[in-house]
């Protein structure tokens, strides 16, 4: 279907179902239960899952296919965000021009940086991209404050011109981002006894774009272009000897992945119209690297899983506090309750970094192919039970003879 092999179609369908059904899937616990703490089905976090999923998919087109490890990808997300907010400030609150501007500006920026950085390979390439991104961050945070808002971030104000829209709403507030009048923040709630499911316009807008972006990435992975990128990863020298110049291909991959990052940045400001400089800091670039590796670099779905994993930790585990712990373990006898709480306490709330670090280590030690490999192992166990044959071992990593 859609020019995909059966297997890819299945993956695309899985992603589609996950994305469209997220408000249900991420809200498995009724609001009254103590486990409701683990529900992630509220608009902001779902948007983040999807947006960082797009960012990671884009990153994976570069890293997973060509093996070039960019350590400065957050810079493209950052400039994309700034471009988006400027469109909101100057043009109007429609998200389409803002997102297009984000992608174009991020694309141009990545042509510039990619052209220079791709003159080197390996760790030298990584350091060049890192250096460019850190320069962008430092300047945006300080001397470029008039353009970027600096520390406080670039935000909308009542004085913005917004030539195609209104500067101020009739009730005296700043207008909110919308898709031809359909506000991104609009929610519809579905209440089924103790469950509340929130359907957010902005989220579904992002989810549709995620599905499109994911489809495009499958097409790239399976195209002759993708094959060429893999050849670059496998043996660039040999490719040179065959008379092919790999540079235009890597540059194209770099720009495509930069535009994905710009798209993610544009969506971020479309959901929440503020662009902070920290999103260009090296830790943000590192985060997308971790997402890709954690999920499974070079696999199609891995980066999305990695993005979801990290954002879940950041937003859910960090919010568990001591009071909540006491509620959970209230069924234990008093003394035991305190002991259990004090044992769990270092890992939640302000200790969420610790849990994240431990999980990074565990995943990479025991699942060398990332979360995707974990899924495959589980899948293999089931398959082994069905048929008496060993798993074929072909993960999404192996090249499918498509096209």
């Amino acid at each position: 279907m859609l020019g995909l092999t059966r297997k890819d179609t299945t993956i695309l369908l899985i992603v589609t179902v996950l994305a469209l059904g997220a408000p249900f899937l991420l809200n498995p616990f009724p609001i009254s239960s103590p486990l409701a703490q683990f529900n992630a089905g509220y608009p902001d976090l779902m948007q983040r899952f999807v947006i960082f999923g797009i960012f990671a998919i884009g990153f994976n087109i570069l890293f997973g296919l060509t093996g070039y490890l960019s350590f400065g990808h957050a810079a493209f997300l950052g400039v994309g965000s700034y471009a988006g907010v400027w469109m909101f400030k100057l043009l109007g609150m429609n998200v389409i021009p803002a997102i297009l501007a984000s992608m174009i500006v991020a694309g141009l920026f990545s042509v510039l940086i990619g052209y220079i950085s791709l003159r080197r390979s390996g760790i030298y390439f990584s350091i060049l991209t890192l250096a460019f991104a850190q320069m962008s961050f430092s300047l945006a945070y300080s001397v470029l404050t008039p353009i970027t808002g600096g520390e406080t971030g670039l935000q909308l104000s009542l004085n913005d011109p917004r030539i195609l829209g209104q500067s101020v709403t009739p009730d005296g507030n700043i207008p909110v981002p919308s898709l031809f009048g359909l506000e991104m923040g609009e929610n519809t709630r579905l209440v089924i006894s103790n469950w509340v499911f929130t359907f957010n316009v902005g989220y579904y807008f992002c989810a549709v774009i995620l599905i499109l972006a994911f489809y495009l990435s499958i097409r790239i992975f399976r195209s002759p272009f993708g094959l060429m990128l893999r050849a670059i990863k496998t043996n660039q020298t040999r490719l040179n000897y065959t008379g092919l110049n790999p540079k235009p291909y890597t540059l194209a991959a770099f720009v495509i992945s930069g535009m994905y990052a710009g798209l993610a940045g544009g969506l971020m400001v479309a959901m929440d119209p503020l662009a902070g400089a920290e999103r260009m800091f090296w830790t943000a670039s590192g985060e997308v690297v971790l997402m890709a590796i954690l999920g499974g670099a070079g696999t199609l779905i891995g980066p999305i899983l990695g993005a979801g994993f990290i954002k879940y930790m950041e937003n859910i585990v960090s919010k568990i506090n001591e009071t909540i712990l006491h509620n959970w373990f209230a069924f234990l006898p008093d003394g035991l309750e305190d002991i259990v709480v004090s044992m769990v306490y270092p890992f939640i709330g302000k200790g969420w970094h610790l849990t994240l670090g431990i999980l990074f280590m565990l995943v990479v030690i025991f699942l060398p192919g990332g979360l995707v490999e974990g899924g495959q192992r589980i899948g293999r166990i089931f398959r082994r039970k069905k048929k008496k044959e060993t798993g074929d071992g072909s993960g999404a990593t192996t090249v499918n003879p498509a096209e």
Partner: protein
Amino acid sequence: MSKKITRRGVLAVTAGAGAALAMPTIFDGSVWADGHSGFTNAPQGDTVTLGFNVPQTGPYADEGADELRAYELAVEHLNGGGDGGMMSTFSSKKLQGNGILGKKVEYVTGDTQTKSDAARASAKSMIEKDGAVMVTGGSSSGVAVAVQALCQEAGIIFMAGLTHSNDTTGKDKRANGFRHFFNSYMSGAALAPVLAANYGTDRKAYHLTADYNWGYTTEEAVRSSTEAMGWETVNAVKTPLASTDFSSYIAPVLNSGADVLVLNHYGGNMVNSLTNAVQFGLRDKSINNKNFEIIVPLYSRLMAKGAGANVKGIFGSTNWHWSLQDEGSKAFVKSFGTKYGFPPSQAAHTCYVQAMLYADAVERAGSFNPCAVVEALEGFEFDGMGNGPTLYRAEDHQCFKDVLVVKGKENPDSEFDLLEIVEVTPAEKVTYAADHPQFAGGQLGTCNPGA
């Protein structure tokens, strides 16, 4: 690309989704519309949820932890637990210790990471997931401004925590946001007379300024108020936020003809730049026949601790200090100290007071509706919260109250006894016009009650 199956597939999915959406009994918007009664997250049932959004990771984690302690104490007091703290000294007697408007106060916590993006994500989850009707906290102006704008958009109240930049109630002010903490302008206005009295009016100052918004407003405020009394500014150099070693910025100071060094730094920057300046022996030198002096416009006791003995004798300003002897401060220190075993920081104080002021405003307004709360807080005058008579000015939602000028103590009695109060500058000395140039360029807008 084979398109024939495509369209059918898509249509099938759409139809399925359409069928699900169309099921009449499930979509129960009316229940929610009922509960909302016209504003975001109207408290349901017999509890009300507040969101405490403080840095729990990153360099300000200790300050954030102290803010959280203060909030927990405030919740305890509001719900009638503990000794009531400042509720007994607060001039408004509306709070009864039975929650807010009879609803028991519950809270959720989040981690700002001192990043505007993360702070907004955390605040959004409080609003969207936990139904918080007010968000408060934070330990930097970048975060305060970002979260304040978010709360304005979402239609809930934001009670700023520690934020000192002029912008929070200046160019980035919002109708739904309120700041109790003092600001750069007030620091400058309070410090200048004390500096003139101690160091004379004929001084040459050298500024090192953290290269971001707060640094800019602080430098501007201190410069203009010291220049007004006759000081000359020899040079002002911006230092990157990420700097850890300030030696290359401090080394040239002695040779510049300046005899005062102003460190417009906060947090880790302040600890390091002050430590470096003392290492270079600046304070042992005399220039132009005057003893060389260092000034730190914004002091924080928690941070001063990181600089150790280097703070001794160095002037600065602070919002509040636990050694104040008014009834409100004493009551607060007592109940905080009894619960946690050490005195509260200024961050803890401002957060506690903000929580109390919000609760009181709701009581006085008789509603959690943000617009009613805004109305109750605007122009509100109160006393007994540790800073003398205080006004929440309606024009910019900034508190006007006494400001403390402090000095690093020479012979501390304990590990908490790092600062001594030199002067309590009365509120009228630090009050400015709402359209003062340092605060220009912003509009409050109108209050937003959300949906």
